């Protein structure tokens, strides 16, 4: 197994005709992802290297039956594209777009919940999802990862590569790598993805990479204590970030005394999650736990 994307993925891409959209779509197809179409209003009937382009998500659904949508359109069109894909019945929407207004994200989150509870949104402002050896949807550089038993969930793209690569160098692979994105209102939070990893047979250890801002890590800590029996190793970025300053990600901001890295690390440690002080240390802890598991196995 693995979670969210695999051999059964049928991907369609909003913004496939754009420069970045086409580049990454073709990259994903080269990896083996089944790309069944693209959506660009006004460009229906064209194709991108053989991938048919449709005018709307409804049309894409009728003709190509995608079960996964990737959103690559500019911020001002992204919210409507996500909702249109959901209305057409797409089960998983992965939004790469960065810079979507927070109020749009709020509207999307609450509309999905009310009108399209069958659709799961990952992102926006995320690098996508990779299940090594099976499918890659997004911009994660797949060459650094191989198939294995570590599930990774992260608010940051490059930090995921940093930690995942160190685990790979130690000889371990990943079941799935999920980037949930750095925005204030992500479609899915740590808890949503932890739930999937906890139920996934392939995943034996989970790496959670968080950062300052909001309380998703604290909520994850509570969830892990109550519902996750698999080992979880965490890393939190932003200990030196000053309050009130947005650190790159729209959601990475300490507001007053809320959302500090120290409070997040403490919440996780108090519930038995080991937290690495550096990305390297987090990877080392993961490798240590995995090594221990294989030694004690019969």
């Amino acid at each position: 197994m693995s979670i969210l994307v695999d051999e059964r993925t049928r991907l369609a891409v909003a913004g496939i005709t754009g420069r970045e959209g086409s580049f990454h779509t073709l990259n994903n197809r080269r990896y083996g992802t089944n790309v069944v179409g693209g959506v660009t209003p006004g460009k229906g009937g064209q194709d991108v290297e053989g991938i048919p382009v449709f005018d709307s998500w409804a049309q894409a659904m009728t003709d190509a039956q995608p079960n996964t949508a990737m959103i690559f359109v500019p911020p001002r069109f992204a919210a409507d594209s996500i909702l249109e894909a959901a209305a057409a019945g797409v089960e998983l929407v992965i939004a790469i777009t960065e810079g979507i207004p927070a109020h749009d994200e709020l509207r999307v989150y609450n509309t999905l919940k009310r009108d399209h509870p069958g659709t799961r949104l990952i992102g926006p402002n995320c690098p996508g999802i990779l299940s090594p050896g099976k499918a890659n949807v997004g911009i994660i550089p797949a060459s650094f990862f191989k198939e294995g038993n570590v599930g990774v969930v992260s608010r940051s793209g490059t930090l995921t590569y940093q930690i995942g690569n160190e685990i790979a160098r130690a000889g371990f692979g990943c079941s799935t790598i999920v980037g949930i994105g750095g925005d204030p209102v992500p479609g899915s939070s740590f808890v949503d993805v932890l739930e999937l990893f906890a139920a996934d047979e392939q995943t034996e250890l989970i790496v959670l990479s968080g950062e300052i801002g909001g309380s998703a890590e604290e909520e994850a800590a509570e969830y892990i204590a109550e519902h996750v029996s698999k080992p979880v190793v965490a890393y939190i970025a932003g200990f030196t970030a000053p309050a009130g300053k947005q650190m790159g990600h729209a959601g990475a901001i300490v507001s007053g005394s809320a959302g500090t890295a120290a409070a997040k690390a403490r919440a996780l440690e108090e519930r038995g999650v080991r937290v690495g002080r550096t990305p390297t240390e987090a990877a080392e802890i993961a490798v240590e736990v995995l090594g221990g598991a294989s030694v004690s196995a019969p």
Partner: protein
Amino acid sequence: MDLLEYQGKELFARHGLRVSSGKAVTTVDGAVEAAGEVGYPVVVKAQVLIGGRGKAGGVKLAADESEVRTHAQNILGMDIHGHTVRTLWIEHASDIATEYYASVLLDRSAKKPLVMFSVEGGVDIEQVAEESPEKLIRHHVDPLEGLSHEEAAGIATEGGADADVVEGVADALVALYEVWLQEDATLAEINPLIVTPEREVKALDAKVSLDGNALYRHPENQSLADSENEDPLERRAKEEGVQYVKLDGDIGILGNGAGLVMSTLDVVAQAGGSPANFLDAGGGSDAEKIKQAVELILANDAVKAVLFNIFGGITRGDEVARGLIAAFDDIGAGGKSIPFVVRLDGTNDVEGRRLLQEAALPNVHAAETMNEAAEMVVALAAGDSVGAQA
């Protein structure tokens, strides 16, 4: 994007919230003139993006022209917790019977707008939340429905507002919600929301944060950024489209990806160093953008050493190397004899390292890992020498 009090009040007025008449000024003479226009007594208020200005002496009541002159002279140029006062808000003084608190914000945890109301206004609301949470009403709004007047009146009643002003408070809450919604704010706060002896409900202060990602919908709000009080380097970075935050240390940092850069700051601090900035060169940076970023980092005179921490995904190691080489060629980055430590991993890392080695830039050192890079740059900033020239 945080707004100054007077800018927030302009937005309030736009959506029907009652505020006192006033005027923003930048000179003592301007203050005197404004006071004459709004009518005595007036309040002279420092406009800074930081709390605690009252205690710092930045808010003063003036009964006549000479008092306005004295207070304006004292407050203009005053340093309030690191923020220089360049603008004053001269407002007609209000008579206050009662002070309440009201705010609307984006609750990231609940993923809903949160309306908060308390009859304990005029004090630090975090303290009220801590010491007497029952006095702070927290009410989540369905963002697809909005806040109705009836709902708002319920919040006011539940919070213990005086019965004769429940309607007035409800009007204020609905208007505040409209400010939050229509202006794409992440926070709209009034503390205090006052009731006058005439039982009028008014916003005496305003704290508004706007979502920078939504500014394209609000061209009229673009100019509200407090550019005068903004750090000049941060302003330049914004104009160049670079994610840059100035910090207090002496080690310049460049990385790709917000998470990795935040992590790099932490690892440098753990190694005993002090970062001079956060700089995310972003995904897919080309040589030109890297060069620009180097210029920005070196424009901060405090920088004694620079760390490049790159894990290439979309960003290619060879482009980063070319950018650094171009920075040395074009702007003489090496001329300032500031040492660089470069850690390149990921896409095209081998090519990038080869380019740097061939260029043999003076005082550029290669590091194998992030932790090693941090230790090297901390030693170099302290004036120690390290091995391994790139």
